[in-house]
């Protein structure tokens, strides 16, 4: 299986994986089975849009307009970030 997300894929965080605020350390984290991943602002902004409804290309377009950045560059970053999570099964997609 390839980890690459296609434009029409709708990524989501599966059961057992969630984004939450780490109050004590004042940051956002992704908690997953036996793993805590610290999220920077970009990571959190991406995952905020990952809801199982939005398509990959819509997520990219939304980020591009919010941050006023070129879509190709955003697409690359989002693709890379989501693929890493997908490789660990912290992220899944529905077509």
């Amino acid at each position, binding site marked *: 299986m390839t980890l690459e997300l296609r434009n029409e894929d709708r990524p989501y965080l599966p059961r057992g994986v969630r984004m939450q605020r780490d109050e004590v350390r004042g940051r956002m984290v992704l908690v997953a089975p036996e793993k*805590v991943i610290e999220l920077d602002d970009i990571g959190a902004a991406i995952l905020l849009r990952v809801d199982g409804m939005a398509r990959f290309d819509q997520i990219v377009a939304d980020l591009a307009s919010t941050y006023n950045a070129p879509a190709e560059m955003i697409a690359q970053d989002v693709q890379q970030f989501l693929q890493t999570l997908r490789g660990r099964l912290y992220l899944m997609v529905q077509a």
Partner: protein
Amino acid sequence: MSVPPPIAMLAELTHRCPLSCPYCSNPVQLERKETELGTEAWTDVFQQAHAMGVLQLHLSGGEPASRRDLEDLTEAAAGIGLYTNLITSGIGLTPRRLDRLEAVGLDHVQLSLQGTTAKLADRIGGYRGGFDRKMAIAKEISARGIPLTLNAVMHRQNLDDLDRTIEMAVELGARRLEVACVQFHGWAMSNRAALLPTRQQTMAVKQTVAGAAQRLQGVLAFDFVPPDYYADYPKACMGGWGSSGLNVTPNGTVLPCHAAQTIPHLAFENVREKPLLDIWRASSAFNAYRGTEWLPEPCKSCERKETDFGGCRCQALALAGDAGVTDPICKKSPKHKEVVKVLLERRFEEDQTLLHRSF
């Protein structure tokens, strides 16, 4: 010194377990039921842990399902927002108990696997019928969609079954397979002769894991804990002593790592007597090997000291007779030749007998 808070806590709810694996990580001196913390005391520990910054709670043992209040404890932990991970052999769980665990918010199950056939698994676990019961409950877990990790503890007597282990993980719908080669502490140390893998097996297992991880990408994630004895450098114990995790034993004793009680000169404190935060920050046991200040040579002037913190303290004690020296697994350790000697002296065809854990 300001001490950053821990991320994860391992709660050894009980040392009781229907199985008696010869590599069990519980101490050789097991704690009895009468001394275990009660439901309220554990709930209080969970609240303290959460308030100080713990995000993940591992509900472990022994066999945590041996506690009849496992569901209540899970509810208490999940209710305050802790990520709850149940580390179990599956024995003692039933479909009804799973329903309740699911309803109260259990996040994840880590199921141990002693072998891939009833014959092997029941011999290793020392519990006849255990394998079949485990498989039945594994199917119940996966049918409910509860996120599942399979934890296969590998050693000389089952390493050759790795391919089948991987297949089973896929069949059971596990998301993750932990291939954990036995670490030699406690009970496993008494069984080292029978469990230590051969060099050939060690090479083969690395290749098998790498190949399968590639082939199954997006289907099954792998975590691989290689056997220490054939490594060049040691692993960081607990990601660094007193840096990110802590253990609480059934009676409330707080440990920097599950084997820390093998170090005789350390004194451990108990949640019955002191707040968890004080123990974490100020107790002599946690501060004994925290950070890198205390490190001896050759670690002190080594560029890897922030990576492995000089390795495992319990292993340094077990192999070099001193918990305060470089882990002898490290090839730079002056005691390293003794590790190599253990390997060279092994005659692997002999000695398959296992000493099972017991109270």
